[in-house]
């Protein structure tokens, strides 16, 4: 019996993997098309965004301490924002838009969300892995102080984005108000994402309050890996992991509820 149920589990996992992959390929074609630059837009579009923001902020004297230029700060910070921000934009309403696919037995609604998240995150990651070495070569950035810490911080940011995106997908499907205002929520989150307001510029006790939001901890850990000990960073790793675990479970639950609702009407 255990061996049998085990093999059913693996079969289901393989099936789901196949479906998510098929949907991701589909998504790649509908979003980027086969003509012109095609797949290159996956990196090109967010890259233009990152570079554009860097150029604009270079004209503003932000007065960062520790000899950090605005371009350097944004080169390292801004790409973290692509995950939760673009990811949310991608999943809100995704199930309703893809209702027609639910007629196919093997496709589960969750797979539609996962496929979109996968593609968006792959794009966000590709653009960073593409731009960061270039920034190092042209001298905007230096080599990371501790690559492992940077990678862990990056993965924590992605994990936060996964939970956050699932929660937003569920809420948007359940409430039209959330769906209509999701871009406002995303915009108002900008000061609290560790990118535009560096934690080292925030006075106590407010900095401590900010650290309750796990995204700030994750992004600051990422910064810590890049800047090293010369720039102060603030984070509570244990708390962050726990909070992210909670967010992920809540996200899975609420998108599950939302999906049941979609399939009823």
């Amino acid at each position, binding site marked *: 019996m255990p061996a049998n149920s085990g093999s059913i589990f693996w079969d289901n996992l393989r*099936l789901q993997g*196949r*479906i998510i*992959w*098929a*949907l991701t*390929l*589909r998504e790649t*074609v*509908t979003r980027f098309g086969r003509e012109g630059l095609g797949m290159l837009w996956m990196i090109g579009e967010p890259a233009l965004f990152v570079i554009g923001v860097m150029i604009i902020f270079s004209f503003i004297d932000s007065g960062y301490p520790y000899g950090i230029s605005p371009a350097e700060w944004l080169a390292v910070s801004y790409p973290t924002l692509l995950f939760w921000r673009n990811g949310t934009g991608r999943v809100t309403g995704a199930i309703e838009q*893809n*209702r*027609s*696919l*639910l*007629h*196919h*037995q*093997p*496709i589960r609604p969750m797979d539609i969300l996962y496929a979109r998240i996968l593609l968006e995150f792959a794009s966000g990651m590709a653009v960073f892995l593409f731009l960061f070495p270039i920034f190092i070569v042209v001298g905007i950035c230096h080599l990371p102080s501790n690559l492992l810490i940077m990678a862990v911080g990056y993965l924590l940011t992605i994990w936060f984005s996964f939970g956050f995106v699932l929660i937003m997908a569920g809420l948007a499907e359940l409430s039209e108000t959330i769906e209509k205002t999701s871009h406002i929520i995303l915009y108002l989150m900008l000061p609290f994402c560790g990118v535009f307001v560096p934690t080292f510029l925030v006075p106590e006790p407010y900095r401590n309050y900010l650290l309750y939001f796990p995204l700030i901890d994750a992004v600051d850990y990422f910064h810590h890996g890049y800047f090293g000990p010369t720039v102060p960073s603030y984070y509570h790793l244990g708390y962050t992991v726990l909070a992210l675990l909670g967010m992920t479970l809540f996200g899975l639950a609420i998108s599950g509820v939302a999906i*049941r609702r979609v*399939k*009823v*009407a």
Partner: protein
Amino acid sequence: MNDLLLENIHKTFPIRHGRDKQVVLDDISLRVRPGERWGIMGPNGAGKSTIIQIISGSLTPDSGTVHRGMNVSWPIAFGGAFHSSLTGRDNARLIARVYGVDVDETVAGVEAFAELGTYLDEPVKTYSSGMNSRLSFALSMAIDFDCFLVDEVISVGDIRFNRKCEEELRSRENKAMVLVSHHLDIIRNNCDHAAFLQHGKLHFFDSVDEAIRTYEQM
């Protein structure tokens, strides 16, 4: 248990902005054994498509259970199972991958059967309903389903293609089918079991002819 079994299905839809409920299916049960060809009749709005969507799993009933002992197709004919901004060819690729069948073989099969010519490389949203059902029918034939759900497919195509579809279905004798339609000829020619849907209830008969006779007298 390789039957398709619907037990005590209830389904209501909210009306007047959720202040009221319209009962569409009221305690419906249906058993489809392998190889059986069911025709379900009913006037427009009787709930025929609702039954098909509950069988296909895209809609959940308020209560009752659906047991799928066989591998059930999507509702053929009904253009709604495709992605409208993808081309016919890309839809075929997607669906082949979803059902785990060979992609190139599927596309080749669709090319040969659907006879869509160059339109296969145009987005599905530009298709007419007849072209849509050609794609849907050809694609479902490429995948080895045990039970085909047919939602009026045969009535939208042109005569020659309809005949081709009916022949194709008849040649797959060991396959089960649930066909919903208000075209009695289609049911008479393709089904060996029949029922009709009225006021949320499914009425069964001993023979297809008897079902059709009763339905015509209503």
